[in-house]
């Protein structure tokens, strides 16, 4: 067991898979010699060499297209899109090519690849380098979508993503790169499609993803300490496949549901989950499900503004307290 940063866990996760399987290659902008703009891939170029770890031009379409061509002919590429906001310039591959090739070809074409990307706010980069766009990927049939919140999950879910036979979009949260956590020694392989109860509780279920997980946890501790409310916090981890059973099971015990989403309000992942719970567990609920999200607006750059729009521990505490005491 060693303490590792989320950033170093990315490199460890990729290295674990590259060492295991020579079909795994990795490329993106500034990822090789520079070790990535977030320094999340430091050492991979030195360990695996220029054939397997490559710097590309600033050509997001070429990066994702090449990953697909390599995947459909037998490799297991990992491609990096530096900021998830840039999905908008290569969305054809994410929306039209990766996820539809298998179906359209009646199962002939395979697309086992991973797209890693820096997602989320907190770095004061403004509206085009701070977005949480996991819902852009979640809405597309044929993709799998994961977003780890801890260094251990980064390694385990990276392994699961690389070994998965479908295209996986892997959202790393930029504001988590510097966070630390215990990571066991040896190989770690997780499972796509499993949520995790990170804090058991009986009064309400709080669902969160990525950066919102530590905030939901901190809020749950305060709700317990200050208001005597015992909340269950679930790290959703994987939006597709979605661990619906874990969510429905929790709501069946707590009878209240809150989602904490960094994405802007409309069509965020919480909306889909709330609709599933309303559909399938309506009579388990003792009150309306509540979504805590970023408002439906572009993200501001200034720190005081950015801090005001992202769900905060205070906002989670206040929203849950008010709802439960209503």
């Amino acid at each position, binding site marked *: 067991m060693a303490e590792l940063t989320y950033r170093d866990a990315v490199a460890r996760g990729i290295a674990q898979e590259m060492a295991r399987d020579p079909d795994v290659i990795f490329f993106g902008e500034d990822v090789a010699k520079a070790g990535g703009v977030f320094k999340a891939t430091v050492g991979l170029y030195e360990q695996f060499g220029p054939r397997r770890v490559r710097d590309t031009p600033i050509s997001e379409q070429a*990066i994702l297209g090449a990953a697909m061509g390599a995947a459909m002919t037998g490799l297991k590429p990992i491609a990096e899109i530096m900021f998830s906001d840039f999905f908008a310039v290569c969305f054809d591959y994410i929306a039209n090519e990766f996820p539809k090739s298998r179906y359209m070809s009646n199962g002939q074409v395979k697309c086992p690849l991973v797209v890693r990307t820096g997602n989320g706010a907190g770095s004061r980069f403004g509206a085009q380098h701070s977005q949480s766009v996991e819902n852009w990927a979640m809405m597309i049939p044929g993709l799998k979508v994961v977003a780890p919140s801890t260094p251990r999950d980064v390694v385990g879910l990276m392994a699961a993503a690389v070994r998965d036979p479908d295209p996986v979009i892997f959202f790393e949260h930029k504001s988590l790169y510097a966070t630390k956590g215990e990571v066991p020694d040896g190989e770690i392989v997780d499972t796509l499609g499993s949520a995790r109860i990170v804090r058991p509780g009986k009064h309400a279920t709080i669902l969160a993803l990525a950066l919102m997980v530590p905030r939901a946890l901190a809020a749950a501790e305060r709700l317990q300490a200050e208001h005597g409310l015992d909340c269950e916090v679930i790290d959703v981890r994987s939006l597709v496949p979605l661990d619906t059973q874990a969510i429905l099971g929790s709501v069946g015990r707590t009878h209240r549901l809150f989602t904490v989403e960094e994405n802007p309000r409309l069509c965020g992942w919480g909306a889909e989950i709330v609709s599933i719970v309303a559909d399938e567990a309506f009579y388990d609920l003792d009150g309306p499900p509540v979504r805590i999200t970023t408002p439906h607006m572009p993200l501001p750059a200034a720190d005081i503004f950015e801090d005001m729009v992202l769900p905060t521990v205070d906002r989670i505490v206040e929203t849950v307290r008010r709802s439960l005491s209503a």
Partner: protein
Amino acid sequence: MARKPVRAPELSARAKLNDDIGEELRLRLYRMQVELREAEQRAFDLFLQNLVKGTSHLSLGQEAIAAGFAAAMKPGDLSFCTYRGHAHTLARGVPVEKVLGELMQRDNGLMRGKGGSMHLTSVEHGVMGSYAIIGAHLPIACGAALRAQYRGDDDVSVCFFGDGTTNIGAFHEALNFAAVWKLPVVFVCENNLYMEYTPIGEVTAVEHPAADRASAYGLERIVIDGNDADVVYRTASAAYVRARAGKGPSLIECMTYRHSGHSRADPAKYRPEGELEKWKERDPIKIYRARLKQFGIGDDVVAKIDAQVMQMIDAATEACKAAPPPPVDILFTDVYADGGWAWRN
């Protein structure tokens, strides 16, 4: 037309009787072009009978390019096509019945009705897909070539597209990417003079939309007569040799003309009067019949090939008409690799 034509290999002793291409290959090229022509014509006729549904983009008049590039390939080489991909798919040996069956949305279709005309794919024949988003497949072909380079495989990825594709970003990203990494990929621009309904010259800064951009990526400027299958075959062979030798990509602009509109919906009224007739004098099949005669191949041999092809296409048509629609139980299969479509537990 070529400023720098690709030089044909030295003529062998056989050249005096025939030439570097030889009778067997030449007959194969002829048969292939006739098959592509008649299969496309049949697809058109079947529209008119309302037996082909959806849209369809025909390669009538462009057969020499598909035939020449495919004939020069080795088994294992990979084709990446556009939505105008019937001809390139057939040229790799995919049976006509499979293609017409897909167009007619029958269970005997290549993808059993799940892909349609614009997405013909036959991995076992090296047809790695037909892509309906302009430019999307150029980077994908780069990726397949990257795998070949990485593993030391001998295959070449060949990517076909129209003149309109040269004005989209993915074209330029892919050309640069392939050139920088010296990938074994051959980019083939079929310049049929129109991007959909608009003359390509009206919307492009240079005369030759592909070739005049080649120098930006350090590549040779190549423009060829795309209606002469021999020229196409020789050019393709040289590009494949270059790719297999690790010398990197080629970009080849083939001048041609489509005899029909852009798609099923287009009667092509935007063409100036007489243009189609002028190009029909340079019909690739007409050119090739004259070529066969020039090399002493008798009319009886040609007529026999024509009859065999028609018989095969008639049989394929009947088989498709008799085939059932695809069963409903495949509707939800192959969304994910586990065979199903489940996104939740």
